[in-house]
């Protein structure tokens, strides 16, 4: 107990020093290895009955819930966004971190974290959705997906949790088969046919994101930490999001937190994430 109290005090006064001491031994304060993930769980719908596709994903204590509500729109309501854009024309994404999920979140305004996640999810949807899949009757009726994502509990690594939940919801999504009625001005559901999945690019080509925390002290040592908890996100010097696909032939990087970066550091990060990307895409295909 006395030993634990000493660590708690040290954690409050000098958290980065305490964290560095553990990283030098290749382990985190809670016993996890640097590249070890917390428990990952994906549960695909029907979680909520008012949506046609839903999934709940959790990585450790971070829980995200994504629901997709489709509606039919007329052609004149689309083409409001950029010409070739899918998001804006055929789907919209809303991400919310309600005050319930963490003590520092506040209701009534969209948090910075939510905006970053929303931007990432929109980029992903542009990548994996196919514009032709939304057409019901050419130049007349189209599907429009309203994707709403909530963070139920936040403990770091929100980006990956939301992405897993979004992918689960897209795989769960089933749309009814619609036909125009006799006059052609409305649509009728074909009850004899089962609901069908939305046409998308194959799962093997879906991008995956892995936020990597880079801890560097004043020296030349760098430590790479995957699956950061909320406390660890405050301790690391820099967070880099590595976007990758299963084949590993398409890579993108974005920086979430300020800190020094170099080409040498990035070269060390890339192989680290490849194995986890393959594992996550394989999990999506088999779950």
């Amino acid at each position: 107990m006395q030993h634990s109290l000493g660590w708690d005090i040290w954690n409050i006064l000098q958290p980065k020093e305490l964290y560095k001491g553990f990283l030098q031994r290749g382990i985190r304060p809670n016993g996890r290895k640097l590249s070890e993930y917390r428990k990952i769980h994906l549960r695909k719908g029907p979680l909520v009955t008012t949506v046609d596709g839903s999934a709940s994903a959790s990585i450790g204590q971070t829980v995200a819930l994504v629901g997709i509500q489709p509606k039919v729109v007329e052609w004149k309501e689309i083409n409001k966004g950029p010409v070739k854009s899918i998001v804006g024309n055929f789907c919209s994404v809303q991400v919310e971190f309600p005050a319930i999920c963490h003590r520092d979140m506040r209701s009534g305004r969209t948090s910075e974290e939510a905006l970053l996640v929303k931007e990432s999810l929109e980029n992903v949807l542009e990548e994996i959705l196919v514009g032709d899949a939304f057409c019901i009757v050419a130049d007349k009726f189209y599907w429009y997906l309203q994707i709403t994502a909530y963070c139920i509990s936040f403990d770091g690594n929100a980006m990956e949790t939301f992405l897993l939940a979004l992918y689960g919801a897209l795989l769960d999504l089933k749309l009814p088969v619609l036909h125009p009625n006799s006059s052609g001005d409305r649509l009728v559901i074909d009850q004899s046919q089962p609901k069908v999945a939305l046409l998308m690019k194959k799962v093997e080509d879906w991008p995956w994101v892995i936020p990597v925390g880079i801890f560097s002290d004043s020296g030349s040592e760098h430590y790479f930490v995957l699956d950061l908890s909320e406390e660890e996100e405050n301790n690391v010097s820099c967070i880099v999001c590595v976007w990758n696909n299963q084949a590993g032939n398409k890579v993108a990087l974005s920086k979430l937190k300020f800190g020094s970066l170099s080409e040498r550091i990035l070269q060390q990060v890339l192989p680290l994430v490849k194995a986890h990307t393959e594992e996550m895409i394989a999990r999506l295909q088999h779950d």
Partner: protein
Amino acid sequence: MLFQRYGPCLEPQSSLEENYQRTRPNNSLRSLVLNTRTIADAAGSGYVELGRTKVIAAVYGPRPPLRSSKGGVENAMKGRLTCEVVKSAYCSYSCESTRSQIGKGFSEEERLLSIRLVRAFEPILLLDKYPKCSIDIFVVLLEDDGSAFTAMTLATSLALADASIELVSIVASATVAISPKQEYLVDPDKTECEQAIALITVSLPLHATQLCEIYHIGKLSAEEWLSAVQLAVEVAQTVGNSMCQFLLQEMAKNEPSNQ
């Protein structure tokens, strides 16, 4: 229903509500699911499913107030209870959603629900034991299929108990609807609530003889009102006993890990 679900471009069909029939007895509840410790950072959290109505509640505190309270020193000697209720976008279909944009503040309905929850729980919490502190309750209504306030009250009770906040008693709640056929329907779902001529929701502390909140919509005679309230109180007490048993089981389950 399909019109509301997928939009006005679909051909209207005969309304399901016209042919609606209750499949369970009038005095029975829907399936009740209770859970605690669903949110990592909260002092306490509770999750309730009442049929298809789903609510999650979290309690943060006692902690310093987020905003300075009105009034002077006399308020500082007693804790303060705040509540925020958020209705998720899943509470309605996309075509009938009135919440135009997330992050634009609370709707009137959400504010009213928050006020009702504070009114129900303020007399129950021993706020004298938490001077200069704020106990903040956050509730998210994930799906609304009727009796939402009942589920919110139950979830908040679970969250407060999970956070070890000192209470007079566990608060339980129940809703009774009076149908056009003058039947008393316990725990009405959304269709029954919309068709009802009157709706009564009561909240009461389990081991006290008073109600802490009563909410009534519609017109009733005095005898009908009294019968409905008595029925709701009986149901609430039954639900409250189930909640107590659940909390005792959870406590027994967690005890070996705390030693």
